[in-house]
């Protein structure tokens, strides 16, 4: 992860502050920084979203393409994650560093979405054993300002919410060979069921307490953190420990509880923004990168 270097007294100041529930920017341990979310920012995609969590800037594009179902799951479609930590985000990502981080993040997302119900994969099936929709979720890290996983998961959920998959019909002719017809109408499409799509909450252990939405400086003071993925109903779908340090079991349970609470709040806030954007429709001008 892109790390900032801090002096010992600076770290001490941060750690003591966390103990007192007053972080450097005035937040409490369970407060998030202000986030900006916008969908449909990239043409050429089935769905896209951009999320800015103060400094962290993420762009996600979802492309629905036709593919063949996996052998072990013949009546389901699937998701493919690809994370690009370009050197844009911070020069420390040059070369191998960025690739490794990208692979790590993609792997975490596979785990998060591997849960049975996260996405209704059966709805992505067109023709069992023959055709299905593959959703390629491409994540582009524009700027890294701390708390990557949470920001990326918000962008992924927003992009999936924005994804429109064209309706298809399977036509069978006399010889038994199948043909797939795509609807011409761009508005004739299906949307994904977002009910159980999880969001990631990263809890970083600092001193004896833990914080959510750590800044780069706070990440430098944290030796271990816990990634939890939470659905909108507050159910945990996966847990992953990150970092070199170790966590004692009791603090893990505390962190899980905080994760559930904060996760639910995240879902509510995100849904509110997405609904607002949708209701404004074309009357709202896209801001994108120009605003």
């Amino acid at each position, binding site marked *: 992860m892109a790390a900032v270097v801090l002096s010992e007294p600076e770290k001490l100041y941060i750690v003591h502050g966390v103990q007192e529930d007053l972080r450097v920017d005035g937040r409490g341990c369970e407060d998030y920084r202000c986030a900006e979310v916008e969908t449909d920012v990239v043409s050429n995609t089935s769905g896209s979203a951009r999320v800015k969590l103060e*400094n962290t800037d993420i762009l996600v*594009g979802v492309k629905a393409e036709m593919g063949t179902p996996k052998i072990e799951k013949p009546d389901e479609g699937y998701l493919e994650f690809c994370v690009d930590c370009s050197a844009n985000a911070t020069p420390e990502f040059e070369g191998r560093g960025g690739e490794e981080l990208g692979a790590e993040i993609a792997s975490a997302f596979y785990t998060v979405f591997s849960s049975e119900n996260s996405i209704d994969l059966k709805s992505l099936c067109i023709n069992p054993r023959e055709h299905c929709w593959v959703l390629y979720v491409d994540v582009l890290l524009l700027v890294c300002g701390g708390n990557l996983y949470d920001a990326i998961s918000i962008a992924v959920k927003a992009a999936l919410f924005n994804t429109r998959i064209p309706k298809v019909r399977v036509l069978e002719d006399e010889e038994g060979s199948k043909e797939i*017809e795509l609807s011409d109408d761009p508005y004739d499409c299906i949307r994904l069921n977002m009910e159980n799509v999880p969001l990631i909450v990263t809890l970083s252990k600092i001193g004896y307490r833990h914080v959510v939405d750590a800044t780069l400086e706070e990440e430098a003071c944290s030796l271990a953190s816990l990634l939890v993925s939470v659905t909108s109903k507050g159910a945990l779908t996966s847990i992953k420990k990150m970092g070199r340090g170790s966590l004692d079991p009791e603090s893990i349970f505390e962190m899980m509880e905080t994760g559930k609470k904060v996760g639910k709040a995240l879902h509510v806030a995100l849904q509110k923004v997405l609904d607002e954007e949708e209701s404004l429709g074309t009357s709202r001008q896209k801001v994108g990168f120009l605003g």
Partner: protein
Amino acid sequence: KRGLYRKRRGLYREGLLSDDGFRLDGRRPREIRSLRMRLGLFPRADGSAYIEQGNTKVVALVYGPREVRGPRSRSAPDQAVLRCRFSLAPFSGPERRRPRGGEGRGSDLALRLQQSLEAAVLTHLYPRSQIDVYSDGSHCCTGTTAAALAVLDAGIPLRDVVCAGSAALAEGTALTDPNGAEEAAVGPGLALALLPASGLLALVQLSARVPCERLEPVMEAAADGCRELHRALDRELRRSLRERHGEV
């Protein structure tokens, strides 16, 4: 997969030019796509720029000049080392581009970018330092222009603002600044990077599809595109300068 995508993109026209000389998107052969840009959108980088030309969107960032990181052998005693990287997002084209590991510095696009910028950046002013340029987007030429703007935004001295444009040959006519559909139909043609004040070229790259006798009009078309781009860019740049300098 016979018959798949039968009705995909059902708007194919017979040709790329209508009878009265209009292109698919309504432009004349020598017109460039509309330009929108913004500088300094990533405050953490030393310089940054964003350009939108038609559907093409490019982001460029610059870090430097700064102390060389890594082996000392990388630094040059008499000038700054310019390191360029060009990456294409997987969703940047009409078909999803399978991400390749090798879009780093050694790639063709990055080398083109490096060549275009080296002609313009006054690197002799910063010995022993390095300047990192990262361009991210769907199009080489726009990426080069965005990179030049990002270098400008970083306050790094430039001989000139490099403007890059391309042209392709379609049905006997040279088309300036081909869009995605046009490029898909006839392939990339000629790419130029121009230093507008002097009229000198920093980059000339030709793909195979232009017969020699057609070279001149295609070059003219590309150069026209660069000059037109420079005019549009210049307007935007000065407006942005006035706004920012009014602030301080």
